[in-house]
């Protein structure tokens, strides 16, 4: 018999209440886990797309709050960028969210410069690549192929134009797997944006250092007004959807912490009020006040940790379930890192601390004689 077993026993004595408390905490934690893993996954997936492409820097117009920076004429800055030190390749990219099939939600349609390094990281699983920069064909990502029900040789209609599916590809980034890719020329013609791109992707040579990167960023800032050179991480961090999803996950963490702490607080306060006499007896039997605090704290911790563990399982299940939902396919790539899961457990511990603090102090301050008289 020790403090831990005694605390466990106290929770076991009121199974319904302990169960409800654990459920409430686990729901809160589940929401935190699901939303945060999705928000992070979303960010990481974009970053992965840029990293996989081998892009070191992205030049774009200083963005408004639109999720995609508005298109600009590539020629305006492309040459100047190409002359900067260590710049190996400058490649334009046009990206739009368009309806590709009436039965499926809009998908990303990317236009990439034919023959540029952007294509290198894609793996062809079926069919062939576009034959030249003007061939009216599209490449369909493995996931998009499933969602759009299109395979090599099929046709897709995008913005009123019919394209043949030349092949199916796979990428390490889920964003690309869910996308349709065509040559930049085709994408510009399709969306009536001749010569325009959303992003210029820069690949540096192997000799480029962090300082060179900083120098290029600085040069863009100084010599190309209205433009911004950022790393893929910074770009993704600026993305409105990423920002919103992160803000939502942060808000959820805050609300879940508050609600969780309140639930623990309420449960522990009720529990010690019911056990006033028992606490008086424990004090009479020689328990130290510190031991009473430890007991109440241990109970609060057990509740919140158990809730946390269940919540992690539930949240992970929720995120994985959402990932496989037809509407969400290809848009979610939830990420569960070990440090994150430990952080969530830490959050549950925090709930226990916040929720258990006052009840524990209150219990320890009971006058033993008054507690013994308590009915």
């Amino acid at each position, binding site marked *: 018999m020790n403090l831990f077993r005694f605390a466990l026993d106290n929770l076991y004595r009121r199974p319904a209440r302990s169960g409800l408390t654990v459920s409430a905490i686990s729901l809160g934690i589940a929401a935190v886990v699901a939303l945060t893993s999705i928000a992070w996954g979303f960010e990481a997936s974009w970053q992965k797309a840029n990293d996989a492409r081998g892009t070191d820097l992205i030049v774009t117009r200083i963005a*408004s*709050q*639109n999720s995609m920076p*508005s*298109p*600009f*004429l590539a020629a305006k800055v492309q040459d100047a960028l190409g002359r900067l030190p260590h710049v190996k390749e400058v490649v334009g990219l046009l990206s*739009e*969210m*368009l*309806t590709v099939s009436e039965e499926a939600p*809009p998908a990303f349609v990317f236009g990439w410069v034919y023959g540029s390094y952007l294509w290198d990281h894609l793996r062809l699983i079926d069919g062939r690549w576009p034959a030249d920069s003007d061939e009216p064909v599209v490449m369909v990502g493995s996931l998009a192929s499933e969602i759009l029900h299109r395979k090599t040789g099929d046709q897709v*209609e995008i*913005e*009123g134009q019919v394209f043949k599916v030349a092949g199916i590809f796979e990428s390490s980034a889920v964003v690309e797997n869910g996308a349709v890719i065509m040559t930049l020329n085709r994408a510009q013609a399709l*969306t*009536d*944006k*001749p*010569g*325009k791109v959303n992003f210029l992707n820069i690949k540096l040579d192997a000799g480029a250092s962090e300082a060179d990167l900083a120098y290029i960023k600085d040069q863009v800032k100084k010599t190309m007004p209205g433009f911004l050179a950022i790393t893929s991480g910074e770009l993704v961090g600026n993305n409105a959807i990423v920002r919103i999803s992160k803000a939502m996950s942060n808000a959820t963490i805050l609300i879940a912490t508050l609600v969780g702490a309140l639930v623990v607080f309420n449960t522990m306060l009720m529990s010690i009020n019911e056990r006033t006499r028992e606490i008086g007896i424990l004090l009479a039997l020689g328990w130290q006040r510190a031991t009473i605090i430890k007991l109440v704290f241990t109970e609060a911790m057990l509740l919140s940790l158990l809730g946390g563990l269940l919540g992690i399982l539930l949240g992970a299940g929720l995120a994985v379930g959402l990932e496989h939902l037809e509407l969400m396919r290809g848009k979610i790539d939830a990420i569960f890192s070990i440090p994150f899961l430990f952080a969530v457990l830490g959050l549950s511990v925090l709930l226990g601390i916040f929720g258990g603090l006052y009840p524990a102090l209150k219990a320890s301050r009971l006058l033993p004689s008054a507690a013994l008289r308590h009915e």
Partner: protein
Amino acid sequence: MKRLLVLLMCFAPLCHAAPGADELAGLMQQAKSTSGFSARMNVLVTRPDGAHGTPFKIAVIGRFRADKQQLRINGISPDSVRGRFFAAESARAGEIRAVSYRTPDKVSGVDSDAHLFDSSLVLWDMFSPWWNWRRQALLAGERINGRECVTIRSSTDVKNSTVREVESCVDVSARLSLRTRLYDAHHALLRTLVVGKTIQKADPSMQAAKKLTITDAEGVVTQVEVYSGDEQYQIADDAFAALDADRDQKPGER
């Protein structure tokens, strides 16, 4: 006395900040100006009996200069609208001349009040010529979809204009009319245009409509959603050639 002065000084900037009716109309007219824009939109028409038409996509491109304003509408999809074009221009005098065509050599004139693609989209509305009318009056402020706006009434006596009076509730800082009501000469309501979602323009203080609902007198509801846009669209040289072709064919006709 000193206190009164301070009080007056506090109010002075407020009075100054609220523009008068003519000034506001001028600002709205100014906000329209662009050397080229393009917007692609989804359009869904719902009949009064609740039946939906087939959703369709169009692109609107245009340039608005002080002396000349031009618009072109391209049908994108499905087949029923694909390859159908409308072009229109309005010169300083305010008259709007419009044509429709499938190929630039077979142009026919259309009424600028005509409804496009069986929806409540009307070319005349897209020019919002009322900001140039001489009579502008400020009415009370309102809230639309939780946003403050100032109602301004524009009216004209021009005989050949179907719309004689327009009431716009303008979010002054965004330079955007959140709700626009168009009336005929007998003050019968012709159409109401209500802005749903908005997006920021390149000038971050200004906004454009992303979602718009048009309800006409017969109860036809047209929902428009912009899904792609370019504020610095490069208008091709021959973008409005059809208008010239029309002028050449039928000189003198509006």
